């Protein structure tokens, strides 16, 4: 199993796809930080949108920005399996590892590890930028305040688990383009609508789980009125999504003939 994980990690590292996903994930997080910093404390039509930088909620939201690019971790996971079908490397992969269940487990572990490493990188960069931004705007710069360590840890976990979800989804759908369209449509559209319209359902969706692990209970970051699971519940929920997709894929698509 360790051999297989080594091979999978080498597969990810030997093409440049991961660089793109890392860049996108970082870009999204930093963009989100920029938005919070720019609009913090600003009044729109006499109402305050985002609290001032001295507000703990704003600080939390700022750090939770590091999970803004989870979608790209999902895409990383999707490409990890659908790319094998697309480039027909799946034939060689199954020749090396004819027991397909083992391969899927190795992939799940590898992508969890890779997602965690990406999460760590994104969180570190985002946190550094956030601290600097807060210092400039006169907010709290102590990264140990306001549950920040918990939020950052949650963001790393969310990234790792999202790549797992993507892998499971990709194994199920197999077609790369279709899987990515489903993922983007789901994350950008369906989840957003359900989260706002039916928050009691929304908390059970992957996006709700990310809110839970990053201690966010508003659609715009910070604490709000949305129903949200406890952090550990969110982590378990994401893990369950990843494993459930992978399990369904294992008994359906992964078993199929490779022709």
């Amino acid at each position, binding site marked *: 199993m360790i*051999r*297989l994980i*080594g*091979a999978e990690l*080498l*597969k990810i590292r*030997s*093409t*440049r*796809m991961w660089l793109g996903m890392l860049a996108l994930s970082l870009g999204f997080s930093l963009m989100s930080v920029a938005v919070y910093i720019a609009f913090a404390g600003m009044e729109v039509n006499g109402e305050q949108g985002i609290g001032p930088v001295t507000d703990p909620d704003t600080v939390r939201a700022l750090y939770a920005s590091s999970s803004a690019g989870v979608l790209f971790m999902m895409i990383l996971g999707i490409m990890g399996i659908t*790319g094998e079908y697309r*480039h*027909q*490397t*799946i*034939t*060689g*992969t*199954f*020749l*090396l*590892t*004819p*027991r397909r269940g083992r391969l899927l487990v190795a992939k799940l572990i590898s992508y969890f590890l890779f997602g965690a490493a990406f999460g760590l990188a994104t969180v570190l960069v985002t946190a550094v930028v956030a601290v600097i931004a807060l210092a400039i705007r006169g907010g709290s710069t102590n990264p140990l305040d306001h549950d920040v360590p918990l939020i950052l840890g949650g963001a790393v976990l969310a990234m790792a688990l999202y790549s797992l979800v993507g892998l499971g989804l990709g194994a199920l759908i197999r077609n790369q383009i279709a899987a990515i369209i489903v993922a983007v449509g789901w994350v950008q559209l369906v989840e957003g609508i359900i989260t706002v319209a039916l928050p009691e359902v929304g908390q059970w969706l992957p996006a709700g789980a990310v809110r839970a692990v990053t201690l966010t209970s508003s659609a715009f970051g910070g604490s709000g009125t949305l129903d949200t699971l406890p952090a550990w519940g969110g982590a378990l929920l994401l893990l369950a999504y990843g494993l459930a997709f992978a399990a369904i894929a294992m008994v359906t698509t992964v078993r199929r*003939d*490779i*022709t």
Partner: protein
Amino acid sequence: MISIEGLAKHFGPVRAVDGLSFTARPGMVTGFLGPNGAGKTTTLRMLLGLVKPTAGRALINGRPYAMLERPAVEVGAALEATGFHPGRSARDHLRISCAASGIPESRVPEVLELTGLTGDADRRVAGYSLGMRQRLSLANAVLGEPKVLILDEPANGLDPAGVHWLRSLLRGLAEAGCTILVSSHVLPEVEQTADHVVIVARGRLVRDAPLAELIGTGGELRVRTRRAAELAVALENAGGQVRREDDRLLVTGLEPEEVGKAALHVEAVLTELVQERSGLEKIFLELTMAELSAHAGAPGAPGVPDGTPRPDETDRPEEAAAVPGQEDRT
């Protein structure tokens, strides 16, 4: 040792492989021959655990492929349509195979050297020609120094020098005691490499015999001489069947030596004595023609003259006429 036992695969109503049995033994190259769509690729894919058989089983050293603990060190396979990630280098592809199978990475430069890819090893595969991809497939197959090799159309895309290299590589491995199963629809390739030939058509076994036996029977000799009429009579008297076209005779049922003796007897000066078609070629052509007419719905399908079409010429219309899904060549 490879044993195929009553193997069958049905895709809906299409019987791609239909109760096939044969063995490939160590120390020899077994040619797996058949027109396109005969079920060769499907058979190999079942042998390698990629496709689940409808019935029967395929064993390597007595076990199904999926039961092998480290398949890459027992069986080397190069399948058609095995992909490489375009963004990954040849060296990285091989390193991944090493990592997954516990093969030391020191094998990577060795197989790159063996397949002549050393100079291009660090380039991305996207820029590779078909021949280079084929070499990479072969490099990957021999990475774990397996004693069983399964190659699907390995000469496709290789230049003549590459084909020659491949032939001597396979011969050398067979002499070292390896079991080698090579599929092909190109006849000369098999005639020059194989010791034993298994011919399939429409998923069924047609012939399973040593190459020498197939070549020896039913071949045709082309003889050219000014004294064609006299020689024709002499050859017929010697027990041959002769067709005459001006100064050219097409002879079946006689060995070259017997033709020479007859020529000496009637004092005919031979300007040409050629083994026109081997028995293997004859069987194969009959098969492809039968397939052609079966698919096209008419005997002697367009583009194929009735005379002596070369097998590589018959390939094209055959491909076009192949039933979709009967064999996967994508």
